[in-house]
């Protein structure tokens, strides 16, 4: 095997590895595709929006851009929803929109190989498996891989006008 084809094989294998940003909601660990993440910042200064679902905390000023903030802990019906110094907002870029999601903490960036990603089982009432891209297994940890694109643009998130054709 020539060196060129060898490199191509290596590159192909690497391309299939995906990097994920791991964050925690309560005791559970979730992960999203790192390419969707724009930045990570603290939770501050959110202006409430009236008559919005409770998991939409409001909007905030991100360097002059008005960005909605969604609390995934409320969306996923977690018991302990507290805002403290550790509370983090992950700013993601999905469907040409910028959205901030509130999580309990960001732990690390993980590279997962295709065989570490298991298909998501068919279940889940609060988090439909439609919004999962799989379950990542990492030694004895399980990461819930969230398809943040699908989740944030879904109708039940009420983030996107259903009438708009974006």
């Amino acid at each position: 095997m020539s060196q060129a084809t060898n490199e191509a094989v290596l590159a192909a294998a690497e391309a299939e590895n995906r990097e994920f940003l791991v964050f925690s909601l309560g005791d559970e660990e979730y992960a999203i595709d790192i390419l969707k993440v724009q930045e990570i910042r603290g939770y501050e200064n959110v202006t409430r929006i009236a008559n919005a679902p409770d998991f939409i905390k409001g909007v905030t000023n991100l360097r002059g851009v008005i960005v909605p903030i969604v609390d995934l802990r409320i969306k996923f019906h977690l018991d302990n929803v507290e805002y403290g110094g550790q509370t983090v907002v992950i700013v993601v870029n999905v469907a040409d929109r910028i959205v901030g999601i509130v999580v309990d903490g960001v732990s690390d960036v993980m590279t997962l190989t295709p065989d570490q990603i298991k298909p998501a089982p068919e279940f889940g009432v609060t988090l439909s498996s439609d919004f999962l891209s799989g379950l990542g297994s990492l030694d004895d940890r399980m990461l819930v891989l969230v398809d943040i694109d699908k989740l944030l643009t879904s109708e039940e998130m009420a983030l996107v006008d259903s009438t708009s054709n974006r």
Partner: protein
Amino acid sequence: MSDEDVFQLIFAPGFSTAKEVTDVSGRGVGMDVVKRNIQGMGGRVEIQSKKGEGTNTRIVLPLTLAILDGMSIKVGNETFILPLSTVLESLQPAKGDMYAMAGDDVVLKVRDEYLPVIAIHEVLDVENAITDPTKSIAVIVQGEGRRYAMLVDELIGQQQVVVKNLEDNYRKVPGVSAATILGDGSVALILDITGLHRLSRAKKEAGKAANQPYLSYYKEAEPS
């Protein structure tokens, strides 16, 4: 009715002078759309006309749509912006000037005119707001030709604000036309008068339906 008022009639929805009506034209829609779009941009249309001489149509638009003269108001701990062009005056309502009407509705008498009262803290669910109308401030506003009295806690002052679109990253919010960033970096919502009025009516109706379940029962039982 003054001549100006008569000329404004051609902007009324459904108003037509066409003798023949086709499927698409002559139905009194076009000029209504024109006026609404111009008003939506914060402008106005004026018509002057003299028989046998001609008609002068003036469309006045703001120089820039990005900057708006606003009146900042406080309700509870939250700050909102009212477009200054909609604000006519503000006053402290006296107890005798407020009249309840058909249960939930309240009107405020201002110089022999009865204006529907919109309590912003009720419509937008603001906590820690002043609920006693005589302790709050009524801002008389005008939107789409109608006047309303909005109850707010406090007037902060006039300021120019940069209009930021909410729909870029979020969606349309009932009662809110856009957002802006205040001096301290926080976001304030710019209120939409007619939207707020619609929202307040929708809320009252929803509240009524919840309190009087038999009404919806009757509607279901007796389809008209």
